[in-house]
Each structure stands twice: as structure tokens, then as C-alpha cells.
């Protein structure tokens, strides 16, 4: 699955993957900017505001009915965070028009609707509809406060905010409550216009008849001669390990540990880092899963992952509150073991195959084919699936040890239950058998 790239103007790139493999047409637009305090919150409001209505489809109801008429087209927007960039995403997925009664006219109608909704919001021209703005500000406020409802996501967000308090990476992808209360409708609209027309844009499409899609996008996007330059992610030296503990009314403790990897996407040995992470905690055959879960029975979930743009390895686990010392000890032993060279040929081989299998599978999923390029557009170097597979294949034992020796523990965070008394809420079921 290869993309052909076309430049539609300075900083605007169209990536096309022509294939008849899927029953759908998928398009995604990514606009990137530096992750910054005020802008982050403004950007987070945009997906909420844009779904409220456009010039042609003035309300959520009108948009929803148009999408139903397009045979359940899915259209949406979100905000993503890759390293120290915040990315505004618009996406469209519709059934391949060739499978439908109205056929051809649906393709153009779908794309025009998509572009109109995301670039022509309902409003007087210099701001969003005031009532929409006030309401979506309150929606975002609820979303930010609601982070607490998903314990694992909440713990991870707190952990990142604490560990990276002095770096842009510490900013939450949907911004923060303080900024939100200060934003005006005019501020957000101005930021939106800047983003649309002055920041780097990447458009990806996967499906059939992409020549028509390309022509249509070319006619819809005004040309530009300048695009804002972006920063690269900050690098940090770790001095002392830090430890944070917070409490909540919970049944289970959530543990997060952050290591600085001192290697990112553009470095040599980046794929060795991915393999090493896989051996440690990326699979069901990994050291963490085998030792923390299968041998010691301490957790249902435990694993590790890599943020390749910023250079972080994060280990997370859900554990019983009275077992956290034990769990921490076993986790640290696994990291140390790898640094001392304890990687078996089976572990190395199984992990490489697992990563290659996962990478190859992406070819079967249109949204995945697109999303895997995100780190590439942030780092300014797109790589094909075949290139990545080849790089993983070449990773050797020595490189895995080397990258593990270079990681450094920065922060350990635990979200603990408020009381250590076991909860009895399941007791209601008792006696049924």
C-alpha cells in the first residue's frame, strides 16, 4: 500500500493510495501546529464547534441527515498529540460509491460536504455562532472535568502532566480549564482561520477513483505561498528520579512509570527501541506480562509503550493497592535484566515477528494505512510499511541491549484508592448459587 504524493501549494500535500481492496473511501486531513498552552485549548474546541453546523448544513441535525442520505457516511474531527505537536484531524469514510445505487454522484457530494463542513462554519464570518460557542465551551469543560471518569486515562494524563510539567509535552491534548474560561469566540475563530490557511496540511485518501478526488481537492483548496515553520521536540536530561502519589475513591491502583529513551524516530536504533519495548511489555509473551501477571498474579493488565517523537517509554499496570511495592520491584527487575543482556533468542524473534505482523496487518485497514504516517509527517520523514518491516527485521540483540542501557527512569506515579479497606460492592450477588 503506497502513497503517491502531490504538492497542492506550499505546505499542502496530498497523499493518494489507489486501491480497490476496500468497500470504502477514506480521507483524512491533518493540520499540525506546535503544542502550546492557549492554542491547545482553542484547537480542542474546533471539532466541537465545527460539528454544530456549516453554511450549507446549519445544524447538527442537518449534518446528520445529510450523512444518512450518503448511506451512513462517517464524518468527524478530533485533536491528536504526537510528540510536541498538536494535530487537528478531519476525516471522512463512506461506502465505496460504486457499490451503491446512485453511484458516481455520491462521491462528489460526499467530498464537497466534507470540505464544506470543515471550512465554512455557520456564523457571521468573523466568529462562530455565539450560542454554539458558549455551549461547546461548556462541553469541553465537562470533557476536561470528565477525564476523571476513566481511571486509566486520568492516571496517565496526570502522570504526563507531572513528569513533563516544564515541557510542552506536559500539555494535555485538549488543553486546560483555566485557559478555557479566558478564551473568546473571536480568539478561537482567528486561531481556526490561521490553522486552516497558514499551517502545514497533509491530506490522505485511500480508495478507488482517486484521480477525481485529487481534482476536487485541488479545486477546493486555495493556493498559498507560505507556511508556518514548526519547532522540534525538546530534549531533557534526567537528574533525579521523581515519585508522585495521588488518591481517588477506587477499587484498583493504577501505576505509571516514565523512562526517557534518549532516542526518537529519526535516530539510529529507533527500531531497536521498538523491539526492546516489545520484549519488555508490548505483547502477551513479554517479560512484564509473563512475570507481573502470569507468574505473580498481580495484575490483569500490564504493559509498556513508546512515544517515538518525544522519546518516552511508559509502563502502566492496574494492581491491587497492597501489592504496589511487589509490582514495582518485579517491573524494575525486568528492566534491569534486559540491560544486563537477558534477552533470549526466542524473545527477540517472537517480538520482531509480532511487530512485523502488526505492521503488515495495517495494509488491510484503510484508516490504519493513513494513521501510521502521523509520526512521519511530524518528524518530516515518511516511511513506507515495507521500509519499517525491513528495519525491524534487521534489529539485533546488541542493539536492544544498547537502547535499554540508555533509557533512564524519570517519574513513577501511582493513583491509589482512598482507603485500603477492600470494597464490598459486589456482595449483592452473593447467595445466588
Amino acid at each position, binding site marked *: 500500500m503506497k502513497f503517491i504524493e502531490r504538492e497542492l501549494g506550499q505546505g499542502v500535500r496530498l497523499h493518494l493510495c489507489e486501491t480497490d481492496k476496500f468497500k470504502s473511501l477514506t480521507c483524512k486531513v491533518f493540520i499540525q501546529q506546535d503544542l502550546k498552552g492557549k492554542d491547545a485549548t482553542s484547537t480542542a474546541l474546533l471539532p466541537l464547534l465545527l460539528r454544530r453546523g456549516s453554511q450549507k448544513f446549519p445544524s447538527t441535525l442537518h449534518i446528520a441527515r445529510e*450523512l444518512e442520505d450518503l448511506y451512513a457516511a462517517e464524518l468527524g474531527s478530533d485533536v491528536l498529540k504526537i510528540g510536541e505537536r498538536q494535530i487537528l484531524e478531519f476525516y471522512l469514510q463512506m*461506502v465505496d460509491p460504486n457499490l451503491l445505487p446512485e453511484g458516481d454522484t455520491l462521491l462528489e457530494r460526499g467530498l464537497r460536504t466534507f470540505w464544506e463542513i470543515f471550512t465554512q462554519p455557520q456564523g457571521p464570518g468573523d466568529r462562530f455562532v455565539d450560542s454554539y460557542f458558549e455551549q461547546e465551551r461548556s462541553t469541553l469543560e465537562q470533557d476536561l472535568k470528565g477525564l476523571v471518569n476513566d481511571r486509566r486515562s486520568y492516571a496517565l494524563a496526570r502522570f504526563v502532566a507531572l513528569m513533563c510539567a516544564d515541557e510542552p509535552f506536559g500539555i494535555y491534548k485538549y488543553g486546560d480549564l483555566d485557559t478555557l474560561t479566558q478564551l473568546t469566540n473571536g480568539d478561537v475563530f482567528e486561531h481556526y482561520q490561521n490553522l486552516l490557511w497558514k499551517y502545514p496540511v497533509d491530506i490522505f485518501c485511500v480508495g478507488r477513483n482517486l484521480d477525481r478526488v485529487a481534482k476536487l481537492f485541488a479545486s477546493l483548496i486555495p493556493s498559498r505561498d507560505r507556511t508556518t515553520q514548526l519547532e522540534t521536540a525538546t530534549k531533557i536530561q534526567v537528574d533525579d528520579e521523581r515519585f508522585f502519589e495521588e488518591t481517588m475513591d*477506587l*477499587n484498583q491502583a493504577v501505576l505509571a512509570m516514565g523512562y526517557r529513551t534518549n532516542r526518537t524516530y529519526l535516530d539510529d536504533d529507533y527500531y531497536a527501541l521498538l523491539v526492546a519495548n516489545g520484549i519488555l511489555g508490548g505483547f502477551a509473551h513479554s517479560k512484564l506480562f509473563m512475570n507481573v501477571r502470569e507468574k505473580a498474579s498481580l495484575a490483569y493488565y500490564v504493559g509498556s509503550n513508546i512515544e517515538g517523537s518525544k522519546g518516552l517509554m511508559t509502563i502502566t499496570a492496574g494492581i491491587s493497592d497492597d501489592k504496589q511495592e511487589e509490582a514495582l520491584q518485579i517491573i524494575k527487575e525486568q528492566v534491569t535484566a534486559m540491560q544486563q543482556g537477558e534477552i533470549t533468542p526466542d524473545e527477540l524473534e517472537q517480538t520482531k*515477528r*509480532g511487530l512485523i505482523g502488526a505492521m503488515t496487518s495495517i495494509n488491510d485497514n484503510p484508516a490504519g494505512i493513513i494513521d501510521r504516517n502521523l509520526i512521519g509527517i511530524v518528524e518530516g520523514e515518511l516511511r513506507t510499511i515495507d521500509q519499517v518491516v525491513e528495519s525491524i527485521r534487521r534489529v539485533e540483540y546488541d542493539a536492544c541491549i544498547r537502547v535499554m542501557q540508555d533509557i533512564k527512569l524519570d517519574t513513577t506515579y501511582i493513583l491509589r484508592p482512598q482507603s485500603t479497606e477492600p470494597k464490598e460492592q*459486589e456482595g449483592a450477588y452473593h447467595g445466588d*448459587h
Partner: protein
Amino acid sequence: METIKTPTGDTIYSKTLSNGLTCFVLPKPKFLRTYGVLSARYGSLDSRFRLKGSGQADAPIGVPAGIAHFLEHKLFEEEEGNVFGRFAEWGASVNAFTSYNQTSYLFTTTENWKGCLTLLMEFVNRPFLTKENVEKEKGIIVQELQMYADHPDHRIHTLLLENLYHEHPVRLDIGGTVESVQSITVEDLFRCYNTFYQPNNLALAVVGDVDPKETLQIIEANYPAWTKEQGAIERLYPEEPRGVKSDWVEEQLHISQPRYLLGFKHEPLWQGEDLLRQQVIMSIALRLIAGRSSISYGNLYEADLINDSFGASFNGDPQYAYSVIGSETRDPDALHAQLRTIIDGLKAGGVSASDVERLKRQLHGAHLASYDSFEYTANRLISYYFREMPLHKYLDLLQSVTTEEVQEALVRQLDWDHATISIIRPVINND
């Protein structure tokens, strides 16, 4: 070998083997991944049963809640360790899940799918259960239950079902309780395994760039012989009163804003094709209330009574049926009052033919799109087969549904005399 054409132009091949196992193969040319799933018609609801003609005593057998899910965890264990590593040798991944009425074991791979398929059949048919490894698993499962107990969506759903039903096991968590899990023994697990994992109670589906004939041959040649008891499984369910146990329940959790969930308990009247038709009708009916294109969605959103979490679903089985409608909300009582007005308005003749036609178009598109997902397609082949629902008739059924049927379903099924409201409110903190 039977064949069925899908509306997206693919062909599904199926065959029931001499041992009773039913198999489905859906070839997907050009795709690199292969997905295989082996499912037992056995879930959390099957905790009282009899195996006829097995030589066992005729007395019904009762086992602790959560045992189907416990078995699902344990089948991965082997004498030499666990089966994860063996799939990993081919870069494949393996997983499983348990529902009310089904336990499924699955793999996904881009390498050596034949090896994966054989290994899948092998490990599901070779339980390795010891007192020690069963005890060890309890710690892991208790952590899994605790994780779900901390999930507000999971909690409100459980709370609703506990109060919608008096006796039926659908009211219990699929994983059981900390106590029931602690009480499970090796003997319980073997008794359930021997009863529910006989091949005629299982189905297997493979989706990928595979040859259907060859795939069926591999299954037939490698499916392990079943030497344990065989017989007709009789599932026993307690008598469930028609009414709800309680019509209003509340609880507190550490969350940012209240959650509201309304449930309607239906009389389980449908099987096979009727059940599928009812699913389609209820999908349309509930979209009129909670769909993004409904007037009520817009009004409730404007009134700041719902957010994106607002949704509704119908859950139907020959044994039980209920619908739920719910959202996070700043004011559950006001949301309830509004929903009551909306639902009563629709019941009083508010269903428009053009709305129904538009929603049928949406369901048509969604049905076509669903064939792009291997997982969804394979799992649906099996779950429809277990419930005798004719997947190939879906689009015809959809086209034949009338506005009157939707109107009638609203009146009959959304009956306030058989409704429960469950609410979770934020804990009031003093610190």
C-alpha cells in the same frame, strides 16, 4: 459445502462436519491478514444445566457465576507454559472474550495462518487445569473485576440489569463476583468444559485470503477427536417475573457528572428470523429517539441535558430482551422528564415515514461497510448462527420494515410499566 453471497460481492462458505462442528469461511482476496475464531455456545448465562443422555445423574447442575469467563482465561494455559508464545513464533496474536451466551477464542496473523488455525483448535481442545494454576488465576481475574468496577459505564449498566431482572442470570456480571470467582474449583471447570465444549456446541470462522476448500480440509483433518461426554445440553433458567425488580435505583461514584440509564424490559418473544427483524425495527425506533438526526437529540443537546455519550441499544436473545437509553447529564431528573415526553410523543403517532426511510438508508450503508471488518464479520457469522438468525436476509428484511411496525414497536416495547431508571451521581466530597 453451502454458499451465501454477501451484498458486497463476496462469498461465504459453510459446512457442518461429521463431529457436529459448524464452519464458515469468507475468502478476502488481496488481504494480508487472516482472522480465525472458534466459539462455544456457552456464556455467563449458562450456570444451571443438564446434559441429557450422558450417563450423568439427571439432577440439574449449578456452578458459580463467572465460570465461563474463568474457563476462557484458563484454556490458554498449557503444561509447558502458555500458548501465547507459540502464536508469537509466527508473529500472530491470540485473544478471547466471553459474553452472556458465547465464549470466543481468536487469532490474527499475517504469517502461517494454517499453523495458527491448527493451534487454535488444539489449545481450545486441550484444557490443562490444576489446583495451583486455578488458584493463581483468581488473583488476575479479581484485578479484572476491580478494573471494571472502577468503570462508571460498566457500573451503571450492571446496576440497571440488577434491577430490571429478579432472577435471570443476565443480571449478573459476566465475570462473576469476587466471591463467586474465589469459590470456583477445578471440578466445576471440568464439568462445564466437558459439557459445553463438545464440537456440536462450537462454531469456527475464518476470514482472509484463503481457499475455502483447503481451509475446510485443514479443519476436518486437524480438529481433535472429542472423547468426553456428549449429549443434548439443556440450559435451565429461573422463572423470571414479567415486571421489573425496582423501577428507580441510584448510586454514587467518584465521577465528574451524573449518568442516567433508562432500561425497558421486553418479553423475549423472538427467535431466528423474527429476532433479526425485531433488531432492525428496534434499531430504527431507538434512532428516532437517540440518533444524531433525531429532533429530540438536537433539543436535548440545546437544553444541555445530554452530551456525546447519549445513545440507545436493543439487546435481544431468545431468553431475554431489553433496550437501554442513556447519557451523561448535568440533571438526570430533567433528562428523564424530557425523555418521557419525547417517547410518549413518538408513541402517540409521531413516527414519520420519511424519517424511517432515511434511517433505512443509513442502516443499509452501515451493513455494507461492516463487511470490511474481519472481526465483526466473523463474529457475526457465528453469533447469528447460534441464534439461527439469517444474515443473508438482512437487507431484504430491512427494506420490508414499515413505518407502522416501527410505530407499533415503540408502543409495545417502550412500556413504562416495565422500565427501570438507574442513576449514578458524583460523590459529594468534603475535602
